[in-house]
């Protein structure tokens, strides 16, 4: 398998070259184009198995599309190209060591050796209120993540605070907790709300734009939705 990322950083496209019978698992709706000999198999929880319940859990809690697709090149080599919804970058994270926590909307695709599970962090992740639903990726292979804006890597060593809407992924060696920022007044009025406090040592990737903040900036000027 060969994964190339083109048109970085604003309109990144992942170009996945598959050898015969090789597969890539991708988020539903991410496929842009593919060779005609690539077969698509749709499942509710393609990566790592687990069936309906796991798929549901991921859809409801992970902020992700309900279905995952497995693309397999048949009878020869093939190519699949993948893109996220929002403008921004795509990065390949090679996985050989610690498991990786990936923010639901940042997951784009993974190689078949990667197992995905919804990391149920309890209410603390819900409290983030910014789609902080984490997928736990483990195993050997590659995970492809996307960002709204640029991806910026931060080597965390000790306590560090991040706005939840800017998190892309982090190594599981880091602990995290959702907390309020400053006093209660600051929590309510600052526009920063709840943040994520990381601790320990490991790599963290953030995105330079916050999808929710963008949505509010534009959405607040749109007419109300009639239901």
């Amino acid at each position, binding site marked *: 398998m060969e994964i190339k990322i083109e048109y970085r950083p604003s309109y990144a496209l992942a170009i996945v070259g598959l050898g015969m019978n090789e597969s890539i698992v991708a988020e539903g709706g991410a496929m842009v184009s593919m060779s005609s000999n690539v077969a698509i198999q749709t499942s509710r929880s393609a990566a790592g198995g687990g069936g309906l319940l796991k798929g549901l859990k991921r859809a409801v809690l992970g902020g992700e599309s309900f279905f995952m697709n497995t693309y397999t090149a048949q009878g020869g080599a093939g190519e699949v190209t993948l893109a996220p919804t929002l403008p921004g970058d795509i990065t390949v994270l090679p996985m050989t060591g610690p498991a990786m926590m990936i923010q639901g909307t940042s997951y784009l695709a993974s190689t078949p050796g990667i197992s995905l599970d919804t990391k149920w962090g309890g209410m603390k992740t819900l409290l983030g209120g910014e789609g902080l639903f984490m997928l736990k990726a483990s195993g050997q292979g590659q995970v492809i993540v996307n960002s709204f804006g*640029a991806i910026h890597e931060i080597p965390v060593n000790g306590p560090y*605070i991040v706005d939840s809407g800017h998190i892309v992924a982090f190594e599981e060696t880091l602990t995290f907790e959702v907390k309020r920022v400053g006093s209660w007044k600051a929590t309510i009025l600052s526009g*920063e709300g709840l943040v994520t406090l990381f601790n320990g040592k490991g790599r963290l990737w953030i995105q*330079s734009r916050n999808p929710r903040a963008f949505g509010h900036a534009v959405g607040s000027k*749109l007419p109300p939705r009639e239901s």
Partner: protein
Amino acid sequence: MEFGIRYRPSYSLLGVKLTPNEQILVEGGSMVSMSADMAIDTHLNATGGLLKSVAVAIGRKILGGETMFVNTFTAGPQGGQIMIAPSMNGDIVHFPLKGGGVIIQASSFLAGGPGVGVKLKLGGIKTLLGGEGLFLLEASGTGDLFINSYGAIRELDINSPFIVDTGHIVAFEPTLNFNVKKVGNWKSTIFSGEGLVCEFQGRGKLWLQTRSVGALVGWLRPMLPA
């Protein structure tokens, strides 16, 4: 205070290193990440009397886009680091203020370092006629000011009357006078798609942004489900 701006121009990210106890004023909701011992204090985003700030803050909120509050972040005794980004895609530009002032469209204000004051620009209300939420702030003092744009920022030297769509204004020097007016005759105002514009006169620098949030909203509106 040291700073760097990365990922320009589409997804600019401002990183600032503060010395012990140093402060930076940041538009509400713009903090991306920071040292864990950074203190945050929240206050209304336009100084000049409580009543006026409340009125202005609410006005800005109603017009959309802007937050009512700004935050002052203060570094701990070891100093600290903070990263800052606006909500829209676009650039961040550093304005070194040296005792003078600059007038900023409110949604273009991102952050001000020590020594930079930001207040409501008097007479800004007339710009309401622009219908595009053009609230103006005046930044002054000596220090580092950071503004953001939707799209790229274009700098112009103005020395004769010049017309700009209100939605594309980022900032201008106070040596420039401005008037909000209709473009062409009434037929043009209604049908040109340009609406009201801002006419600048005098000499000074003007900064424009290459995209308009109002235009994006106008494009999206008819696409919404009925």
